[in-house]
């Protein structure tokens, strides 16, 4: 019995098709405005791959900021709940799970697929992927370039300001005072990691953390975050699609009630 989980995010659309044993993932670039088009595309690709048809899908659960645009959904649920379900489906027993997307920053504490606490990050760009996105546009550097440059520096500095807008001015002054771009980029990642850690963990040390969402794909961020948090940070396979997987699993459970 196949089900679909669709996570319509601000920057990417994630879709998971599963019957419990056969699970397939898709992550497509493109934000909220094109959510339904991307969702259709992702679903068609997944169905073709699995060799099944639309009518073979019994239940579809949508999550994320664009979930209302997913007209073909049968239901929806909170992202945090889907995230916990997804981690459970992957068999990962870590209790602290951080989801860092382009506009989201939150941490759940979960156990056996159930959420028992949620901590939200700052409501502004300072704690989200937007911080890095904005600065990468500002510096005319691609994401990959920024990740590479991080590893070419060993600076231990962080930026003074938390606000992305003011950070741009700070970066300009650093460039004017002759700082190397690699050092600046490294301090950007370090600042960002520090902000996220501070907002979500408030200085507590936790041995094991899991990280999902777009930022989990950044080696530079992971390195900075591991250092600043002092924790072991696990990144599951398909880190961006864990919540979508959870949605598909929730869809499995609720099929028997239909």
């Amino acid at each position, binding site marked *: 019995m196949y089900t679909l989980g669709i996570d319509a995010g601000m920057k990417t659309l994630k879709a998971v098709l599963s019957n419990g044993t056969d699970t397939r993932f898709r992550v497509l670039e493109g934000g909220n405005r094109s959510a339904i088009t991307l969702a259709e595309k992702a679903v068609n690709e997944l169905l073709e791959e699995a060799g099944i048809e639309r009518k073979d899908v019994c239940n579809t659960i949508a999550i994320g900021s664009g979930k209302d645009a997913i007209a073909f959904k049968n239901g929806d649920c909170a992202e945090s709940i889907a995230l916990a379900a997804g981690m459970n489906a992957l068999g990962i027993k870590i209790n602290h799970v951080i989801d860092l997307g382009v506009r989201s920053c939150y941490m759940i504490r979960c156990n056996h697929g159930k959420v028992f606490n949620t901590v939200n990050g700052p409501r502004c760009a300072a704690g989200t992927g937007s911080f890095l996105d904005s600065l990468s546009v500002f510096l005319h550097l691609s994401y990959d370039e920024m990740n590479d440059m991080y590893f070419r520096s060993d600076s231990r500095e962080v930026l003074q300001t938390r606000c*992305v807008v003011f950070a741009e001015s700070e970066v300009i002054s650093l460039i004017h005072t002759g700082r190397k771009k690699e050092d600046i980029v490294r301090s950007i990642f370090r600042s960002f990691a520090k902000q996220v850690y501070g907002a979500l963990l408030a200085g507590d040390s936790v041995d094991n953390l899991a990280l999902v969402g777009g930022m989990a794909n950044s080696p530079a961020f992971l390195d900075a975050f591991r250092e600043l948090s002092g924790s072991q940070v696990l990144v599951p396979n398909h880190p961006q699609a864990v919540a979508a997987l959870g949605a598909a699993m929730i869809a499995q459970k609720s099929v028997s009630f239909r």
Partner: protein
Amino acid sequence: MITAGIDVGSSAAKAVLLQDDVIVASTIIPTGLDSAETGELVFSDVIKKAGIDRGEVSAIVATGYGRVNVPFADKHITEISCHARGIHSVLPKVRTVLDMGGQDIKVIILDNRGNVENFIMNDKCAAGTGRYLERVAVFTEVPLEEIGAFSVRGEEQAVHVSNFCTVFAQQDVISLMREGVAVERILAGVCDGLVERILPLILRMDPRPDFAVTGGIAKNIGVVKRLEKALNMPAFLANDPQLMGALGAAYFAKDCVKNER
């Protein structure tokens, strides 16, 4: 006796020449990257406008971000005090001042003599500052000084724009522009959001009439009207809202001269 007040802000540097309680000349120039140079530039500019020599200025007081960078000033006084003094000189009944500049937002409570009773400042977050609107101006392709008028036109049909963060608001504006939403509606949403964002800061200070708005934002009629509605108080505007800090500084310069006598 002519005195000068110089206010070097994050975005703009202002200078005022005061004689017998009248502004004889004033100037506003962009601050640029080197505020030490800016202090000199803005002062030269204003004395040139008045057609006088440096020597004819009896005293100079500097304020603003660059107040430490105007070495030739006789005294440096905080921007809060200068703003309060400047506003009090033109609007003596004002007790609450909202000053929104390029990079920060201040709320100042005055007593009936123009002394600062209380104040609060946000300079950690760009939301609601001139920076926020500058970005909006870029993405909507509407000049900064016209945003207010556009937002008034779009008032009835404002679309929601994220109000908490400059970056998110910018992302929303870009999306909405791509969708072809009328720019008046977007700007109405931006101004609505801006006021929502700063209102708690103002309310925290227990605002009382008369209420005045200074700084670059005073030129934005959309924000001013929305503030009046939210606070249920008319907003008084000085004719030259950006010059209040420099004006107050020029008045403090008068005190310097009096004290020396």
